[in-house]
């Protein structure tokens, strides 16, 4: 399993980055998820997708973190959204940042549904399993997330 997990690291990092835009937090989440997964590897059901299982663990780690921050008084690590905007920022970069910012506005549940299905390519069933919810819940989160994104991003769609 280790080899497969190593091969999945780039995608785990991408998924974590959809949950938090702080790159350090995202990598910390990946590390936590990898360590938890390898510690409880016997809980993975052979035949199911390893990536979906890891995404679920990673997301749970993020939910734990959000709760802990709530208890600690919400000291959020700074977002790095502006980091890449330099004088030479190009249209594509602005577009990327706009989409990232739009996704960051969604509630966590919708954000995870959108990230798992639209970015990571899980099926509805796999994403529902990873989030531990019925398929109907997953599809309604996905639908609401999509609608919200369309509304936020619509004004730009004519330009792209």
């Amino acid at each position, binding site marked *: 399993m*280790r*080899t*497969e*997990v*190593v*091969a999945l*690291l*780039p*995608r785990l*990092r*991408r998924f974590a*980055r*959809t949950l938090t835009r702080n790159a*350090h*937090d995202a*990598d*910390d*989440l*990946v*590390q*936590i998820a*990898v*360590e938890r997964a*390898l*510690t409880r*590897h016997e809980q993975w059901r052979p035949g199911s997708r390893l990536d979906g299982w890891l995404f679920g663990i990673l997301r749970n*780690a993020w939910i*734990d*973190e959000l709760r*802990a921050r709530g208890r600690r008084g919400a000291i959020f*690590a700074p977002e790095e959204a502006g980091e890449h905007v330099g004088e030479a920022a190009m249209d*594509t970069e602005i*577009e*990327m*940042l706009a*989409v*990232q910012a739009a*996704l960051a506005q969604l509630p966590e549940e919708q954000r995870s549904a*959108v990230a798992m*299905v*639209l*970015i*990571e*390519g899980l*099926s*509805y069933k796999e994403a529902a399993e990873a989030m531990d919810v019925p398929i109907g819940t997953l*599809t309604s989160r*996905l*639908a609401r997330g*999509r609608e919200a*994104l*369309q509304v936020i*991003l619509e004004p730009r*769609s004519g330009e*792209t």
Partner: protein
Amino acid sequence: MKPDDETLMAYADGELDAEDRAEVEAAIAQDPEVAAAVKRHGALRDRLRAAFDDVLLEPVPDRLIQAARTAGPAGPAASGAVSDLAQARIAKTERAARRWGAREWGAMAASVVAGILVARMAPFGGKAGAGLVASSNGELVARGALARALTEQPSGQPGVHADVMVTLSFRAKNGEYCRAFVARDTRAFSGLACRDEDDDGWRLPVLAEGGQWTGGPNGYRMAAAELPHSVIATVEATIDGEALDPEAERQALATGWRPQ
């Protein structure tokens, strides 16, 4: 009848069975509004992927590769396991402090321990699409001379595409053909490529910095190559039996790497 939006989303996500799909396609053909809605769903997906795909091309931090290789029931404490972000930050600071001595040492051994890179585009020759590696649908795929070499070039013979040497070919456990290679761009990198039947391309499940080959100009049979051990580990994990012998490889080359 006009399909509802949930059905259109499911269609855009490839979740409908053949019958429902046919209905939606009929509606798309008749109703420009339906067609536009489906197109919007597809466009949103493309924009989301484009906004995050660059993460796939960043080098993976060492500590994550280490975590994947060493964490587990055997001793999470020893490997520096963390259970929340606050703890992770502390552990990271400590590790960074400890690692300084090891770093110079590491530089000497860099060619041996080259880690998984899954690369920034820069080492692969500039912008996405221009180089040998590109990202497509969330996966890395071979492009240009690398793709051609993987399709056309026998193992152990640098030369046809001068900057690529394929080191071995094998059948993976899932039946696909895969080939390990070393390539030179602005820097050397190595990886494993597996044949994607759907589009005659090569997926790159593993890509690592480093790797080299020796062996001379065209005609030198079986030049020697060194692969980073992350590539070797993946070969060992996925190979079904032995590597292809030259005859089996010739056949695979001749038949376009289609599983028989």
